[in-house]
């Protein structure tokens, strides 16, 4: 599993008021982004996205072997 300290978290507030959360692993360049649901807890949405991101990173690492 990738070190959490190596994942970049971007919180982006769009002109239309929507909020995006983007996770990026700078070494592989892999990024995953989600528009945050305004009524749901942000931390829980982040944990779900992070789980998916770490699974995707594991696939990238496997395919590189």
């Amino acid at each position, binding site marked *: 599993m990738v070190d959490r300290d190596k994942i970049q978290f971007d919180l982006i507030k769009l002109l239309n008021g929507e909020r995006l959360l983007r996770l990026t692993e700078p070494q592989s360049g892999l990024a995953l982004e989600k528009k945050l649901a305004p009524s*749901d807890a942000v931390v829980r949405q982040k944990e779900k996205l992070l789980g998916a991101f770490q699974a995707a990173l594991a696939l990238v690492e496997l395919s590189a072997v």
Partner: protein
Amino acid sequence: MIRSKKLAASQVHRRSGIILGWTTGVEWRLNLAVIDINQFKNFRLQGGFIITDIELTDDPIVDAIGREAIAQTQTIAGRFRLFIRSGLSEEELSITLYHEILEAASVAIANPPAGVMDFNEADFERAAHDAHKRWGNASPANLDLLLHFHGFRGQ
């Protein structure tokens, strides 16, 4: 602690921009008249976070697929970089700073304090407005107060 009472008197130190005001009771407030973005750079916050950079930009913040943003906060290993569109009023900038820092801190760590675990976007915005009302314009010390208030601890 500051409450939203009218100031009975105030003094402005012109060089620092600091306002020192007295309310009708024993309360007081110490505040910056103007938000100086440079004061935040390399400031270490509660929770061990560091603001490495803040930029107010006249240029549109646009991503690869053309979406325009008004603010973006990058966090990696507890280090924050903020990009904010210029042209916001003093109050809007202050509230934006409170909001961005509290939400970024909540997202950045594995185990956020219980106080922010259930916060949705509206809750973060409300917390930012409350902080602005309670402590005045965002400053490094006030961002620290905000994080401490919501349960972040440690340097």
